[in-house]
């Protein structure tokens, strides 16, 4: 790496001479003289120490999407306007200005989501409740801003004033994502964080491959995260466990598709 390149990187990363000195264990004066071009021929050790500061590995970002349709924007800069101008056949989500392509759901994926939603619906009906369970595709403007639109597999909305502009405006009470290999990383790390911050009360991650269900009860400090298998009955926290999803029955219902896959 040349001194010019280091100078460029210094600008890019916004480092001060003092920070570089600290990170490279060199005296500030030396750093200033070398990067300032006063010392024309610095010692090899000095150069190596400086280089080590600037040798930054590219972080592997959580990103799935190709550059977006027709628009010359960078990931992170997209808004809901861009989202709505995308052709309908391209299924995407927008999270913090980044566009993520969504894989088409498999039959197993779709049936599990439908079954869970059906159980929620039956429960609400039996109680004459006002909550509305919905399956994808439904746009959720999670943070009520123009940087994020998600399409969770199943949502439960209990505050009907959140139906706005033909989409959900704000955080659902409960979100279920059925994981697929291509969305695993996004659903596990990025969306869990987004849902927690947006005020979602409960988040289920259903993993058909490992036959497991992770339940995050963001309001319940005593049992924040619980893991279940496809043999278990999973209680719905927002309904105080009165409604239970019998995953054994759902699994038996889709088992023939697992056999096909084998």
């Amino acid at each position, binding site marked *: 790496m040349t001194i010019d390149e280091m100078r460029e990187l210094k600008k890019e*990363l916004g480092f001060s001479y003092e920070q570089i000195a*600290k990170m490279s*264990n060199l005296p500030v004066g030396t750093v200033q003289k070398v990067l300032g071009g006063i010392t024309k021929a610095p010692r090899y050790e000095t150069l190596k120490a400086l280089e080590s500061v600037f040798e930054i*590995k590219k972080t592997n970002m959580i990103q799935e999407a190709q550059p977006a349709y027709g628009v010359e924007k960078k990931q992170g800069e997209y808004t809901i306007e861009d989202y709505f101008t995308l052709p309908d056949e391209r299924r995407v989500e927008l999270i913090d200005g980044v566009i993520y392509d969504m894989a088409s759901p498999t039959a197993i994926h779709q049936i599990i989501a439908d079954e869970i939603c059906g159980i929620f619906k039956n429960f609400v009906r039996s109680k004459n409740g006002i909550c509305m369970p919905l399956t994808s595709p439904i746009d959720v403007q999670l943070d009520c801003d123009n940087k994020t639109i998600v399409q969770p597999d199943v949502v439960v909305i209990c505050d009907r004033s959140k139906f706005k502009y033909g989409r959900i405006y704000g955080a659902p009470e409960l979100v279920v994502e059925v994981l697929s290999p291509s969305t695993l990383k996004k659903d*596990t*790390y990025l969306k869990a964080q987004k849902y927690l911050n947006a005020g979602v009360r409960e988040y289920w991650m259903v993993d058909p491959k490992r036959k497991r269900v992770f339940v995050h009860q963001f309001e319940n400090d005593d049992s924040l*995260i619980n893991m279940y298998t496809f043999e278990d009955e999973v209680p719905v926290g927002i309904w105080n466990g009165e409604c239970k999803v019998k995953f054994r029955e759902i699994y038996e219902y889709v088992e023939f598709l697992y056999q096909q896959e084998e």
Partner: protein
Amino acid sequence: MTIDETNNNQNSKGLYDQKEQLDSVSMVCESQPVYGTVKKQGEYTIEDYLAIPDDRRVELIDGVIYDMSSPTAIHQEILIELATILKNYIHSKNGKCKTYVSAFDVQLDCDEKTIVQPDVMIICDRNKVHLQRVFGAPDFIVEILSPSTDKKDSYLKLYKYANAGVREYWIVDPLKKRIIVHDLENNTYVTEVYTFDDQIPVRIFGGDCIVDFHTIHMEIEYLYQDNEET
């Protein structure tokens, strides 16, 4: 020349010059990034972090400053036990990886907005380790939960670590006596849940190193009894 002298100066031009000088001096002072100046959460940088008095333990994540609680005895025992097992394993293999315990600063994203202090970490690329701090993502991280940090450790840090390139992340929950292991490597992203009586393989070492949590559990059992009595 003092201010009084300036005020007494009949030459209005001189008075103007002097005032302007004073103004510019005070403006320079105000714009210095000093700890205690008015900044919002999300705007803090490493300079602010380093200017915080040493007795206040904090982390900086995406420009937000988070206070850290003082660790409990259970927390400290688990930390030492785990670090010892990891260190002994690496020694026995003559490995080059290094084990560190809190409080050692990690400049996770190599930027100005984030400095974390993981409870236990392993770093295999020694170039990342500088005298003052770690520059880049550790290979392996353990966080031991306390009630005040559980959401930060379970969601925010999980997201940050996954993004930064950490390969494996353990979250030890002393209250529920379980360990959530996140394998962040190889595009599989496996999450496993273990109890305090399980044997847990360290995946970055190919499962060759196994942490017998039962032994650790026995070591700290007396602290739980103490809690029940009080």
